[in-house]
């Protein structure tokens, strides 16, 4: 087996691991179910003429189809989307420290959530008004970064990054301003919880939208793997190889803002995945994006599904915010891998 088919094999195996993991994670929770029950309920749900998201079709059906399955799927989608966007952002700004939130998305989303929770903006209109506000904050900031970066000619990576960081600070300051003057202890607590991320809000209404956008985005980036490779070579080399990266860079920022925006909308802020999973994937398959992107997506999905299981089963009758779990499990594993594998992203070693 040559090198490339080995990589394809690993990716294929991980896909199977992910599917088994998702199936098994249906078993675990405050009520432990048997494999047989799960299988029967899934099949029943699929062949039944009632919509699966209708409650009242028996306790087993409700637990599996309404409580567990949406959040497991959401965890997988969010993990894959964030990891892929992390890879893309690292390519766009040619820096291994980039993550999906770097272009102001994180503080844009936080600002949106803060305004929604503390000032109640939009509370009468949308059921998940905090998510909507966070989505608008995230995407709005990315669009603003792009518009500002376009003033005065070429949009290059450092310019995007610096404008993103500056807008990050403005948004954080505005959030702090609202928090300071609102004097609302409960509100501040719910912002803190919201920022830790959770899949508890998953439902069949938003799942197709988030899933659709994420999967289309991931496929799009995989098809564009050569452009992403080229970004790491830099603008000058790209021109001599026939590619003008300015246009791609902007459309990629926009697309990943949309993907991350929808993930923020449905699951809050989930750090870590978008920064570290790309590196783990690079340790396994190397820098070439046509293997790196699927690898990162699968690892992200596997990690978040696992983190979700742990978050809802570690302490009985209670749920730990998933963001805490990811960092607690993930970060030490990551450090271990870097130390053991003598990993470098490159540069001067």
């Amino acid at each position, binding site marked *: 087996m040559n090198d490339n088919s080995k990589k394809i094999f690993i990716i294929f195996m991980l896909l199977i691991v992910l599917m088994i993991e998702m199936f098994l994670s249906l078993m675990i929770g405050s009520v432990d179910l048997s494999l047989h029950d799960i299988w029967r309920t899934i099949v029943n749900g699929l062949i039944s003429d009632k919509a699966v998201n209708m409650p009242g079709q028996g306790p087993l059906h409700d637990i599996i189809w309404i409580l567990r399955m949406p959040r497991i799927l959401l965890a997988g989608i969010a993990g894959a989307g964030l990891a892929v966007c992390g890879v893309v952002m690292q390519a766009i700004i040619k820096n291994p420290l980039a993550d999906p939130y770097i272009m102001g998305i994180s503080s844009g989303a936080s600002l949106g959530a803060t305004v929604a929770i503390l000032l109640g903006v939009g509370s009468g209109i949308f059921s998940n008004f905090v998510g909507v506000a966070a989505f608008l904050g995230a995407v709005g900031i990315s669009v603003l970064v792009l518009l500002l970066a376009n003033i005065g000619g070429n949009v290059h990576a450092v310019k995007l990054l610096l404008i993103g960081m500056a807008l990050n600070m403005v948004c954080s300051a505005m959030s702090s301003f609202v928090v300071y003057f609102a004097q609302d202890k409960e509100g501040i607590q719910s912002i803190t919880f919201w920022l830790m991320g959770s899949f508890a809000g998953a439902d069949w209404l938003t799942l197709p939208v988030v899933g659709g956008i994420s999967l289309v985005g991931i496929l799009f980036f995989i098809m564009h793997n050569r*452009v992403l490779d080229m970004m790491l070579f*830099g603008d000058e080399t790209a021109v001599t190889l*026939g590619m003008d990266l300015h246009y791609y860079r902007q459309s990629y920022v926009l697309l990943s803002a949309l993907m991350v925006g929808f993930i923020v909308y449905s699951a809050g802020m989930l750090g870590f995945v978008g920064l570290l999973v790309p590196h783990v994937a690079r340790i396994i398959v190397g820098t070439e994006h046509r293997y790196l992107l699927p690898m990162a997506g699968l690892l992200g999905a596997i990690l978040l599904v696992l983190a979700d299981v742990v978050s809802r089963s570690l302490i009985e009758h209670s749920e730990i915010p998933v963001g805490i779990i990811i960092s607690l499990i993930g970060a030490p594993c990551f450090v271990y891998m870097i130390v053991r594998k003598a990993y470098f992203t490159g540069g001067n070693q």
Partner: protein
Amino acid sequence: MNIKIDNLFVKLGNKPIIKGLNLSINSGELVGIIGPNGSGKSTLLRTIYRVLKPETGVIYFDGINIQDKSYKETARQLSVVSQHNNFSFDFSVGSVVVMGRAPHKRLMEQNNSDDYRLVREALTRVGLSGFEKRRFNTLSGGEQQRVILARALVQNTETLILDEPTNHLDIKYQLQLMSMVKNIGCTTIAAIHDLNIAVMYCDKIVVIKAGQLMGVGTPDELITPELIWDIYGVNATIYRTKDNEMYILFTKTI
């Protein structure tokens, strides 16, 4: 490919670097561009390979203004080996070289077995066969330059630009790289610091000083102690070997 440069002006920021330069390069020639630091050699080359845009003036490839071509079209005519090749991420040698196929591919078209065959052939031609899986960043400077030359080879262009390619290389690799380039036999434009290397390999020498053309000609007719004094301000004596090859010896100035 014939390249014609017509009354070219290039600015970097607000500073004029190339000031009204005219030059013709004929198909098949190995042209060396020499001149002191800051004379505009690199700026001229970077304008030809389209990283910089001219202020005024036109560059023609085979009679067609390059501004009327897409980057992809010019990348099929012209490949570049430059001195900056530090990547912040680590690529394998194979994936660096296969990028040379990019101008021949549609956006979503993937590389196929022919492309990888070209990569292996090119690596063999630059003396690096079997290096596909090595990490680019772990290679020596000479090996890295040869990998980039291999990338230019798979790009399969009529013309090659070498933007001070032999900087940081020791003498063996300098000679090796220039010999390889000479053997490839396509139209080549190279900015060269070392005058002895320039006269050894080039069919034609172009002298640039302060953004203007100071002279064009074969090494034999052009390079004289007077010219060297004019462009660099150093004393030099020109010797001939038994085979009548030029050798330039510089005298200490301070």
